């Protein structure tokens, strides 16, 4: 049973198209994240949801819209795709905000979704 699963794993599309990536976790965690990893391997946080509520919204173009229908799911929709959007997008989850009630505990990552924009 995969703890954090993402679909699709690979996505190749043309500039200007709209695409979605879906993420599901079966760990019972309250917090979910989207991270972007570019070709230089930088892991950059994009969004975080806690119990379906948006808590972190980094400086990301508003072409990116996350949606959390319930605490086990976090989807990412991208409009008008650009070449610079090519990257691996990782979904992750954590048990709320860590042991001291501040910040995330251990993050469990999905396998990643490699997006290539042509």
């Amino acid at each position, binding site marked *: 049973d995969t703890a954090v699963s993402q679909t699709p794993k690979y996505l190749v599309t043309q500039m200007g198209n709209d695409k979605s990536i879906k993420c599901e976790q079966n760990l019972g965690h309250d917090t979910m994240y989207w991270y972007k990893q570019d070709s*230089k*391997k*930088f*892991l*950059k*946080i994009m969004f*975080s949801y806690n119990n379906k509520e948006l*808590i*972190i919204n980094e400086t990301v173009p508003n072409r990116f819209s996350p949606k959390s229908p319930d605490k086990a799911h976090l989807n990412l929709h991208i409009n008008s795709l650009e070449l610079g959007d090519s990257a691996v997008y*990782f979904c992750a989850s954590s048990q709320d*905000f*860590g*042991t*001291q009630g*501040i*910040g*995330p*505990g*251990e*993050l*469990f*990552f*999905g*396998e*990643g979704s490699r997006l290539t924009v042509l």
Partner: protein
Amino acid sequence: QQPVQSPQAVILREGEDAVINCSSSKALYSVHWYRQKHGEAPVFLMILLKGGEQKGHEKISASFNEKKQQSSLYLTASQLSYSGTYFCGTESSSDYKLSFGAGTTVTVRA
């Protein structure tokens, strides 16, 4: 703000030791360490909370100097399985965000 990791890359022979450093300009609440193998997801190694704590995971250990806002990861008697990119993630005392460094690529050769 992202932490700074050094070195960027290190090549080791099996059995050798290495140290990876991570530093931040912000006051830190915790430091996380993750390892990512090529084409895979990052995998959690350990969390260090403020207090100068040291932790270990097999022959991989880490320290956290809260005053210097630095953490170091120690790879002892490295094995082939230690190859991968190691990321430190820092959580500042002022927000809930986990910011990752650029990673250190470790290659262990037989």
